[in-house]
C-alpha cells in the first residue's frame, strides 16, 4: 500500500487492455457502417459506463446497491436542463430557475456538470446511508432510488413528471460514448488503486481485521459512493443524448437489474468483470436478436419466436452463474500475462 | 475411520493427510494448539466441510462428501464449537430438532419421550427451563443442552468440540462426569476435542495431539502427559517437519 506508483505501474495493464477492447468494438462499428449497428454500439458503451460506475461502489465495498440508477436519472435530467433550447424549457419545464432556463451548454460541458450534480447528491445520500451495511444498506439504496423516481415522476414543472422530456440534442457518433466509457474505466481503476479504494477492498475481504486496524468504513464507502455516483451521472448525461428523450421510468428497476446482472455475471469484484459482463451479455443479446429477426439458411429462413431472446438471456445468465458463481472473471483482472493466479500481486487486487 | 484426509479452506490447508481410526466404545481426545486443525477434522467427519482429499468411513459406509444429515442418520452426533443452540427455540424444542429423522421407526414417540426423560434426568436444570427460550440459558446450561441434544437420537458416536470452553471449572467437571457415565451406560464412542490436554489426562483414554494440520502423537492420554515430546510438540520447541 505504501508504494503507490509501483501499484499503478503493475496494474496499468488492466485499464489499457479494457480500453483497447472497447476501441476494437468501436472499430468494428465503424467498419460495419450501419446506422442501427452504430446505435447498438453506443448502447454498449453506455452500459459499460454505467456498469463500471456501479462497480466502483458495489465491487469495492461488496454492498449491493439498487440505487445507483437514481444517479443516472439525476445526470440525465441535469444534461437535459443544460442542453435544451431555452424556448422549450420555458414551455415544458417552467418551474426551472430563470438562469437555468436561459443557459444552453454544449453537450460535453453539460455532461461534466451533470456528473458533478449526481456526485453531489451521492454525497448527500451517502452521508446518511453509508453507516449501514449489508442488506439494510441495499434496501436503503433502493428506497433512495424509489424516492428519486417518485420525485422525478411527479414534479410537473421541473422534470415534466412522467412525460418525456424532449429537445435534448442527439449525438449519434460513437466517439464521445467510447471516450466516456474509457474515462469511466480509468476513473474506476484510479479509485481502486487509491488509498481509499485499497482500504475499502481490504474491509470488504476482512471486515473484522479492517475495523481493528482503524479503517473508517463509512468514510471509505462514502468516497466510493460519490465517485461511482459521478460516473453514473456521466453515463446518464450521455444516455439522454443517445436517444434525445428522457423519462423517469427509463431509470428505474429495469435498468437497475440490467446493470447489476451484467456486473454480477462479469464478476462483481473485478473491473475487468464489469466490462466483460457488459460485452458478453450485450453480444449475446445482439446474437439472439439477430436470430429472432431470422437467419437465412439456404432457401429457408430460420427465426426464433419473439420473446425467446429474453427467455434465453435469463437462462444463459442462470447457467453462467451456476457454473461461475463469482462471475466470468471472478476476482481477477485482465493483464498482459494471463498467469494472474501464479502472481497474486500482479493486479493489486487483494484476494 | 479417516484415511489420508486433507482439508482446505481456499488456499489454506487446515488438515494435511491425516489418518485415524476409532474403535467402538473408545474415548478419543484430540488436542493441540489453536489452528492445529482439530475442529476442521471434526467438521470433515460430520460432513460439514467435505475434505479436499482422502476418505472418511463411518459405520461401515464411505461417507466422504456425504451430506451432514445423511451422516447424522448413520449415528453420528456432533456438537460443534461455540455451543450452537437455536436461541429462538425453547429448550425442549432444541432437544427435539433432531428426533424427526427416526420418525418412521416403530415406537418412535415413546422412544423420544424416554430419551427426553433421560436427558432431563442427566441435566435436571434443563427440565426446569424446558419451556424457556434456549437463547436465555447460561453458558453452562447451553453446553448441557447441546450435549443433551446430541444424545437424543441414540447415536453411536458423539463428537464434541471443546466442551469445556468458557465454562466454570465445576461445570466442566459435571459435564465430563456425565459424559463418562453415559459412555459406560450406552457403549457410546466419544470423540472429544480439547485445546488443553489436562482434561484428557485426567479422564484417561486415548489421545492424539495435532499441530499444523498433522497428527504428531497418538497414544494413551495419561502416558503421554509425562512425555517430553508432548511438551515440545505443544509449545513448538523443535522444528516441524
Amino acid at each position, binding site marked *: 500500500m505504501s508504494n503507490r506508483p509501483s501499484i499503478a505501474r503493475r496494474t496499468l495493464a488492466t485499464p489499457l487492455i479494457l480500453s483497447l477492447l472497447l476501441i476494437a468494438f468501436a472499430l468494428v462499428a465503424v467498419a460495419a457502417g450501419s446506422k442501427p449497428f452504430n446505435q447498438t454500439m453506443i448502447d454498449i458503451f453506455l452500459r459499460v459506463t454505467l456498469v463500471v460506475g456501479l462497480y466502483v461502489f458495489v465491487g469495492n465495498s461488496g454492498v*449491493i446497491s439498487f440505487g445507483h440508477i437514481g444517479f443516472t436519472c439525476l445526470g440525465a435530467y441535469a444534461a437535459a436542463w443544460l442542453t435544451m433550447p431555452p424556448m422549450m424549457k420555458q414551455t415544458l419545464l417552467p418551474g426551472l430557475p430563470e438562469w437555468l432556463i436561459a443557459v444552453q451548454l454544449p453537450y460535453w460541458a453539460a455532461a461534466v456538470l451533470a456528473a458533478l450534480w449526481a456526485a453531489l447528491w451521492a454525497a448527500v445520500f451517502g452521508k*446518511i446511508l453509508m*453507516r*449501514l*451495511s*449489508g*442488506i*439494510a444498506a441495499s*434496501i*436503503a439504496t*433502493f*428506497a*433512495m432510488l*424509489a*424516492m428519486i423516481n*417518485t420525485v422525478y*415522476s*411527479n414534479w410537473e414543472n421541473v422534470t415534466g413528471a412522467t412525460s418525456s422530456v424532449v429537445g435534448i440534442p442527439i449525438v449519434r457518433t460513437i466517439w464521445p460514448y467510447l471516450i466516456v466509457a474509457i474515462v469511466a474505466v480509468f476513473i474506476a481503476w484510479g479509485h481502486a488503486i487509491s488509498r481509499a479504494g485499497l482500504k475499502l477492498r481490504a474491509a470488504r475481504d476482512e471486515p473484522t481485521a479492517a475495523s481493528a486496524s482503524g479503517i473508517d468504513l463509512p468514510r471509505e464507502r462514502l468516497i466510493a459512493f460519490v465517485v461511482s455516483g459521478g460516473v453514473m451521472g456521466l453515463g446518464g448525461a450521455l444516455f439522454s443524448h443517445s436517444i434525445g428523450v428522457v423519462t423517469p421510468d427509463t431509470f428505474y*428497476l429495469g435498468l437497475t*437489474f440490467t446493470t*447489476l*446482472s451484467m456486473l*454480477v455475471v462479469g464478476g*462483481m469484484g473485478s473491473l475487468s468483470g464489469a466490462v466483460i459482463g457488459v460485452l458478453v451479455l450485450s453480444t449475446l443479446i445482439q446474437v439472439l436478436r439477430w436470430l429472432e429477426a431470422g437467419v437465412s439458411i439456404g432457401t429457408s429462413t430460420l427465426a426464433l419466436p*419473439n*420473446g*425467446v431472446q*429474453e*427467455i434465453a*438471456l*435469463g*437462462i444463459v*445468465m*442462470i447457467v453462467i*452463474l*451456476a457454473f461461475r*458463481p*463469482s462471475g466470468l472473471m471472478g476476482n481477477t483482472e485482465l493483464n498482459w500475462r494471463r498467469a494472474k493466479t501464479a502472481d497474486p500481486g500482479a493486479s493489486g487486487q487483494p484476494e | 475411520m479417516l484415511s489420508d484426509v486433507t482439508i482446505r479452506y481456499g488456499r489454506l490447508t487446515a488438515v494435511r493427510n491425516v489418518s485415524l481410526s476409532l474403535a467402538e466404545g473408545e474415548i478419543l481426545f484430540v488436542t493441540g494448539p489453536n489452528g492445529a486443525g482439530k475442529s476442521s477434522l471434526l467438521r470433515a467427519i*460430520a*460432513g*460439514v466441510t467435505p475434505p479436499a482429499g482422502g476418505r472418511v468411513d463411518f459405520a461401515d459406509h464411505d461417507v466422504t462428501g456425504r*451430506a*451432514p*444429515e445423511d451422516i*447424522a442418520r448413520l449415528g453420528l452426533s*456432533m456438537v*460443534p464449537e461455540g455451543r*450452537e443452540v*437455536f*436461541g*429462538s*427455540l425453547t429448550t425442549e*424444542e432444541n432437544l*427435539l*430438532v*433432531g428426533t*424427526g*429423522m427416526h*420418525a418412521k421407526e416403530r415406537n418412535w414417540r415413546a422412544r423420544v419421550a424416554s430419551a427426553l426423560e433421560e436427558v432431563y434426568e442427566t441435566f435436571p436444570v434443563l427440565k426446569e427451563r424446558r419451556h424457556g427460550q434456549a437463547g436465555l440459558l447460561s453458558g453452562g446450561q447451553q453446553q448441557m443442552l447441546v450435549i443433551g441434544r446430541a444424545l437424543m*437420537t441414540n447415536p453411536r458416536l458423539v463428537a464434541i468440540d471443546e466442551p469445556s470452553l468458557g465454562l466454570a471449572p465445576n461445570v466442566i467437571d459435571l459435564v465430563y462426569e456425565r459424559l463418562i457415565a453415559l459412555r459406560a451406560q450406552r457403549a457410546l464412542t466419544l470423540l472429544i476435542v480439547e485445546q488443553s490436554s489436562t482434561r484428557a489426562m485426567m479422564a484417561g483414554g486415548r489421545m492424539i495431539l495435532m499441530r499444523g494440520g498433522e497428527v504428531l502423537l497418538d497414544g494413551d492420554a495419561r502416558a503421554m502427559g509425562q512425555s517430553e515430546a508432548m511438551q515440545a510438540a505443544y509449545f513448538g520447541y523443535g522444528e516441524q517437519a
Partner: protein
Amino acid sequence: MTAILQTVFDALSLGSLYALGALGIALIFGVMRLVNFAHGDVIAFSIFALLWPSTDVVAAVVAGNLPWFLLIPFVLAMGAGLSVLAEIVVFRRFRNASPATMMIASFALGFVIRYFLLMLFSSRPKSISLLPALSQPVEVLGARIPLLQLITILTTIAILFGLTAFLKRSRFGLEMRAAAENFTMARVLGVRANRVIMGAFALSGALAAAIALILGSQTGTADIQMGTNVMLMAFIATVIGGLGSLPGAVIAGFLLGAASVAMQVSLSIDARPFRDAFVYGAVILVLIFRPQGLLAGRGTKERV
C-alpha cells in the same frame, strides 16, 4: 367515525397483502439466505395458471371456472408447484453461492417466467372474474366495506395463525424454524436440508398464490406485472422487520400498509403523488435507527 373505521380497514387490507408477501420472502430467506426476486413473478404465474395460453384479448378462462373449493387449492398448488420447481431446477445449484449471485439468479429466473408468460398470453392484461361473489359491500359497525376487504383481512389472520401453529406444533415446522436459525447445525442434527428448503419454497409459493387470489379478485385482472409492486413492498417489509424474523416481517408488512394509507389520507392533493417518496423516506429512517430491523432475527448473521 365510520370514515376512521373505514381507513383502518383500508390499512389492514393493504397491510395484509404486504404481510403475506413479506412472509413468503422471509421464509425462503430464512432457510437459504436467498432474497427471492422471482416471488412477484410466481404471484403472476399463479393467476395466469387459471387461463388457457392464448394471445387473444379475451381471456380464455379454463381452470378459473372451477367452483371455489377446487379453484383455491388449484391456485395454491400452482404457486407452490412453480416455487418448488424453481428450487429444484435453479436454486439448488446456488446453495453455496453468495447472496448477490443468488439474488441475480432469482432475478434472472423471474425474468424468464415473466417473458414466458408474455409469450403465452401477450402483454395485454387479461380480465377475469374471480370469485365474483366477493365484490359486494357489507356493513360492519356502520361502515360499508367491500366484502373482499374483510375476507382479505380475515384470511390473512387465518393464514398467520395457521402458519404459526404449523411452525410451532408440527415436527416439520420445528425443523424449519431450527434450519432458519442455523442451517448447518440443523443438518448436523439430521434435519434433511432439501426437504426443509423445498418445504419453505412450497409454503412461500402458496403464499404467493394466496396474494394472487386476493389481487385477482380485487382487481379483476391478470397482469404480468401484478406481483412486482407487492414484492418490492414485501421485500422492504422483510428487511425492516428484521431479516430472518417471521413475526417481524408480518408486523413490518402491516406497518407499511398503514403508513401508505395514512399518507394517502393525510397528505394534501399536491403532495399526494409524492406519497411513495414519504413512505420510502420513512423506510430509510427506520433503517438508520434500527439497521437490524424492528425485530432482529436471532442468529441471523449479516453475510452481504
